[in-house]
């Protein structure tokens, strides 16, 4: 290919096009101006979404990556623009979300001089990026961006930050085309699969009387939903999910036994401590899942499938660690395992589900009180969408309720901030989620606390006209903290009483239709109206002030000590 002159800024955009990153979320500023200047001429090939805050930009990038399965791209300027990305980077790091963030930086000759809007973003973001790199010369750009996209998406995905000094953006150089990266000698995205561990795992499963499969986002990230389904179906094993594994297996699958962890379902938590073989697939034994670790599944032989070798034996020691991409390891296991009927074992789960339904679920989704509950809102959403919507949640009580009760038919339908628990995630993430799945209905379920953290992104919705349904479940409290204060701090409600603006008026100010529901009789119609509305819509639902999320594994307790009330 003949060389042509390009500026560093143009080379950045060429890389985005070559990588198929046609949607970019960003915010301009001094040090990234050359890239924005170049963007002016790339309007036909790249869609840039102007957000209202860089944190909103990166959460949108995350939402986009989660629903589309592609790498999210985020632009921000130096200094405060770059530091505003940090929360999103930490969130993407802990939730393994593929992102390439491009930040502008002061001129190379000014580095280290405390120049205007200079910040050492490389060192600031080192613990919260899979990889980061500072470019000071334009000739590096094609190679570095190829590496950035490759690292973000391959192996265990994660966020990559590339900091580009202003001189490198301006500099012209001989552009020789874009070559995608597919190998870095010091980086091994997938560990070698060892046959002996596959064999050992197969033998354990075949001898198991009460096996339990627990799965996380690895199934989705590995695009291995089909392989996973075949694996559990062949030998009839019950499968329970972590919050990020949600939607990898349809909710109504007969072997889907529910959610793990602190606010998970009764059966999978209690029976974790009764199963004889625990098969963990693409999950990392977070403390919210395991509860007290020294009382976690001690009776069980543990098989752990993970693409990241550092996850194996990190929290829970594996008897058999199956390193590798689960898209490759699951079929190998499926091949070896015997077909079995485990209906008796599944019946045990069903009995627990019934108990939980009677004591917890029924009252939550069909409440007998006057106050509306979050659970009934989600139930009506399920009935209206038939489980086909993407549900984006924020962090707190509504998140737990939504994840517990939302129904999903399709994978990549649940977008939430799992590991980091970032309040303010949902509104911008829902914007990104919609851009990542334009043909799907996207519903953001948000609490009255979280929505106020990034409410400025209503401006992004206004300007782009993106169709996002916003449901604020307002209990006039920072509900999850209030629940803990009630249960563990003698009801000393310290700074959890949070006031809200008139959300419908706020939405109106941004040109977004909205309504508020205070009585049950209006709920169903309101939800139907919201979903039928063309374009964005904000629905505020007043729910019971002091409702608690149950079941609950109190902190420091074993999963088998889960409380139903």
């Amino acid at each position, binding site marked *: 290919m003949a060389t042509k002159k390009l500026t560093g800024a143009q080379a950045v955009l060429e890389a985005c096009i070559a990588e198929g990153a046609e949607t970019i979320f960003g915010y301009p500023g001094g040090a990234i101006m050359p890239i924005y200047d170049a963007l002016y001429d790339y309007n036909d090939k790249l869609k840039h979404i102007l957000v209202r805050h860089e944190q909103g930009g990166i959460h949108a990038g995350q939402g986009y990556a989660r629903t589309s399965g592609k790498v999210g791209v985020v632009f921000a300027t130096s200094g405060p623009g770059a530091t505003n990305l940090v929360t999103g980077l930490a969130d993407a790091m802990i939730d393994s979300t593929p992102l390439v963030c491009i930040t502008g930086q002061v001129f190379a000759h000014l580095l280290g001089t405390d120049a205007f809007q200079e910040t050492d973003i*490389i*060192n600031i973001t*080192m*613990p919260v990026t*899979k*990889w*980061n790199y*500072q470019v000071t010369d334009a000739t590096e750009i094609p190679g570095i961006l190829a590496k950035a996209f490759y*690292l973000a998406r391959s192996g265990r995905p994660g966020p990559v930050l590339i900091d580009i000094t202003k001189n490198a953006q301006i500099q012209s150089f001989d552009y020789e085309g874009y070559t995608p990266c*597919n*190998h*870095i*000698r*010091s*980086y*091994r995205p997938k*560990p*070698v699969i*060892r046959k*002996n*561990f596959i064999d*050992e795992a197969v033998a354990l499963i075949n001898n198991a009387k009460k096996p339990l499969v627990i799965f996380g986002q690895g199934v989705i990230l590995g695009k291995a939903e089909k392989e996973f389904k075949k694996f559990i179906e062949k030998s009839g094993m019950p499968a329970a999910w972590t919050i990020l594994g949600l939607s990898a297996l349809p909710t109504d699958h007969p072997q889907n036994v529910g959610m793990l962890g602190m606010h998970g379902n009764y059966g999978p938590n209690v029976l974790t401590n009764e199963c004889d073989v625990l098969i963990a697939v693409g999950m990392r034994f977070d403390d919210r899942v395991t509860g007290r670790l*020294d009382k976690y599944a001690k009776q069980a032989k543990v098989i752990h499938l993970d693409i*990241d*070798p*550092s996850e*194996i*034996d*990190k929290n829970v*020691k*594996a*008897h*058999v*660690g199956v*390193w590798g991409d689960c898209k490759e390891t699951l079929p190998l296991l499926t091949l070896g395992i015997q077909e079995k009927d485990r209906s008796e074992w599944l019946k045990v789960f069903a009995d627990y589900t019934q108990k939980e339904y009677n004591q917890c679920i029924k009252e939550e989704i069909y409440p007998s009180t006057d106050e509306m509950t979050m659970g009934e809102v989600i139930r009506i959403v399920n009935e209206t969408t038939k489980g086909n919507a993407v549900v984006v949640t924020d962090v707190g009580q509504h998140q737990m309720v939504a994840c517990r009760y939302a129904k999903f038919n399709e994978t990549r339908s649940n977008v939430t901030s799992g590991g980091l628990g970032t309040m303010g995630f949902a509104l911008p993430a829902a914007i990104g989620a919609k851009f990542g799945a334009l043909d799907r209905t996207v519903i953001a379920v948000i609490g009255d606390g979280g929505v106020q953290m990034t409410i400025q992104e209503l401006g992004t919705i206004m300007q782009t006209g993106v169709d996002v349904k916003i449901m604020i479940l307002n209990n006039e409290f920072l509900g999850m903290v209030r629940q803990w204060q009630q249960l563990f701090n003698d009801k000393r409600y310290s700074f959890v009483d949070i006031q809200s603006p008139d959300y419908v008026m706020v939405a109106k100010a941004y040109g977004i239709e909205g309504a508020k529901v205070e009585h049950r009789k209006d709920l169903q119609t309101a939800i139907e109206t919201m979903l039928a509305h063309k374009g964005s819509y904000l629905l505020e639902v007043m729910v019971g002030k002091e409702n608690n999320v149950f079941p609950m594994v109190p902190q420091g307790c074993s999963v088998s000590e889960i409380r139903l009330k």
Partner: protein
Amino acid sequence: MDTNTEKQEYTITVYTENQVGLLNRIAIIFSRRKINVESLNTSPSEIAGIHRFTIVVMESRDVVMKIVRQIEKQVEVLKAYFNTNDEIVWQELALYKVLSEEITEKVKVERLLREYGARAVAIRKDFIVFETTGHREETNKLMKALEPFGLVEFVRSARVAIIKESSGFHEKLKDFEKKQPSEDVIENEYLGKREAVFTM
């Protein structure tokens, strides 16, 4: 003694690309877990362009294994090993500055040099600099011996270590350069041996 939970000295050897900022990436793996690094040395390795870190920590085997995996996870790290002291040959270098007047008058310098295997690397009218190499106890001994005679400055290098069982990195590097690395590159020798290796 339980080798998995009992703390002892471990020497971590890391082969890396030569990249700005990598030192920091490795350092924060320790600092995030509040683990003190006893000594750290970076140097070229037997292969041009490949760097070698030698890091000494006082930790349990369990913790060291987890750290080594976190180190290996870094994009620019090729391989990390960890070894106990009996698996390596190691040295540290120490320099001692003493006043010439003091030392020549009060000490039989030649006996000192012979006894501690020291060398004089600088001899001036006003001061002398001695050098020893060895394990910490050995370099400490000379420090103790010189202290009464007004030791002006003392400095000791980080540990450098050679792994006894290692056959170098040349062959391994060839494996890394292939798109599909060989099994040798990915070592999971302890997997599936939980009872033998781990305790909870």
